[in-house]
């Protein structure tokens, strides 16, 4: 057995993760063909690289099938209601910044805060006979945020992509989505709520609290911790 590190299997997130570890003396690399999801680690003894979809990393950590994993705070908190008990945040990696925000049409000049949103949701329901629809893929995070804020009479509709377009298409009245610069929002005539920041996310190195650690795993973990904290 060895200490298993789960890393996103493709795209910028994978490249930036490789770079981040490389700067700290740990070489991660994909092995085999372009299409094969296999990897290797050099720099710490007894470590193994597991390439996974970023969305599956929280689950694998929570199940203890990998010891360490790199994925966004947003995915961890969306997928694991008990994440604080299951995972330890070892190190934020300083990239992959994204804010989960609530946005409404710019033409809603009367809506700037959650307070406004709640009032509008009530009258919208009365006028249109259905609850105000919020398009998102982050159901848990958005629901818990709005419950906490005491916003009622809304409805979450699932949107796995092109979420900002749902308002124009009238399949939703507003959106809850990840944004890094806000440009897509503006291009789609949407604006942020001033107190509608649900979560600030970035790529983070997590450690599973439920995985089992052999003596060799502990040695490897200590060596890794020494590298990343220097």
């Amino acid at each position, binding site marked *: 057995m060895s200490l298993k590190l789960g890393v996103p299997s493709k795209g910028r997130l994978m490249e930036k993760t490789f770079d981040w570890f490389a700067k700290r003396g740990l070489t991660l690399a994909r092995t085999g063909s372009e299409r094969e999801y296999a990897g290797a680690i050099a720099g710490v003894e007894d470590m193994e690289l597991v390439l996974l979809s970023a969305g599956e990393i929280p689950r694998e950590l929570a199940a203890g099938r990998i010891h360490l994993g790199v994925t966004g705070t947003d995915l961890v908190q969306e997928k694991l*209601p*008990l994440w604080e008990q299951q995972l330890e945040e070892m190190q934020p990696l300083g990239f992959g910044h994204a804010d989960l925000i609530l946005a409404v*049409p*710019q*033409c*809603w*000049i*009367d809506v*700037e*805060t959650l*307070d406004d949103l*709640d*009032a*509008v949701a*009530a*009258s*919208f329901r009365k*006028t*249109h006979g259905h*609850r105000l629809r919020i398009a998102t893929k982050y*159901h*848990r995070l958005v*629901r*818990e945020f*709005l*419950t906490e*804020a*005491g*916003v*009622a*009479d*809304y*409805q*979450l509709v699932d949107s796995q992509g092109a979420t900002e377009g749902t*308002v*124009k298409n*009238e399949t939703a*009245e*507003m959106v809850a989505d990840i944004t890094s610069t806000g440009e897509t929002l503006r291009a789609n*005539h949407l604006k942020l709520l*001033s107190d509608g920041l649900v979560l600030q996310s970035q790529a983070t190195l997590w450690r599973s609290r439920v995985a089992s650690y052999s003596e060799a795993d502990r040695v490897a973990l200590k060596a890794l911790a020494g590298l990343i904290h220097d």
Partner: protein
Amino acid sequence: MMDRSKALARATRLRMNFEAAGAQVVEPPLLQPAGTLLDLYGEDIRARAYVTSDAVRGEQMLRPDFTLPVVQMHMREGAEPARYTYAGEVFRRQEHDPDRSNEYLQVGYEIFERDDPAAADAEVFALIALQLRGLPLRAATGDIGILMAAVQGLNTTEMRKTALMRHIWRPRRFRSLLDRYAGRSPVPESRLKLLSSEGPLTGSATVLGKRSEAEVAERVALLREDAAAAPIAENELLALEALMAVRETVPFAIEQMRDIAVDLPAINPALDRLDGRVAALKARGIDIESLDFEASYGRTSMEYYDGFVFGFYAEARPDLPPIASGGRYDALTRQLGQGGEIPAVGGVLRPDLMLMLEEGQS
């Protein structure tokens, strides 16, 4: 793990007791159409109930409680007056609290009756207390109707009262609305700007989405109206706050609330109803002198109750949910009644927890 067959046997016995008290046995289905539950509770119900679906019937929920289907059944086909009892599983997601059961038995007793609500309240409470005798429990009671009467009686605009009523069950939002209407919290910069600008009400932004320009303009007009309205008076606000903080044994609670009614006279009829209920409880042998009353009880977890509310708690086990709970839900029958309505009150017991406490005693 609690022995399931023991809990089932206890549930059957409790239901027989309720049958003997005059209730008719009903068996609502396990799968409930999700739409009704979502309309009633909003998205929050998804955090509490299991959702499943198929391509034809769409989303359905595993029964999170019995009250809703029993009310629907009664409003559809029930004779008046009616008493119902049931025993069966309910399902609740416990994602933040995995030590709590996500599937457990409930046994309930519900009364639909127009005459003498005080007697019906007392009947439910006393009958449930009787099933629990001998267990080390503390009963908590409250009355959402008094709070609602207090809000309705405030000397302020209808719009503000409607907004406050809508959030009776969300204490934090209620608090922030109250602070705003009392002029305690500052008006946000953005609001001031919106209210000060004359001319077109919808700005220059591209209009999109289902919410129309007219709706936006209408709300801006309402906000201007609201900005011109006087804040809620200090004496009313203090009285409302004092009311929400009342937590005493029943006789002292009533005394305190009668004092508060000097500034909030609108609660007097609700207090008269409480007097009536107390007399009815006494007549059923309930020890009123030691019974607790909390004016804010039931504001967080019992969203459809709008009158009498109660719960029985294991004193030595604060980690456990209530062993029994219930209340009055007149408004729910109106919401689900499609034009009809009838005063209704009911309560449920948890046979599994009763057994657990009994085993702990012996």
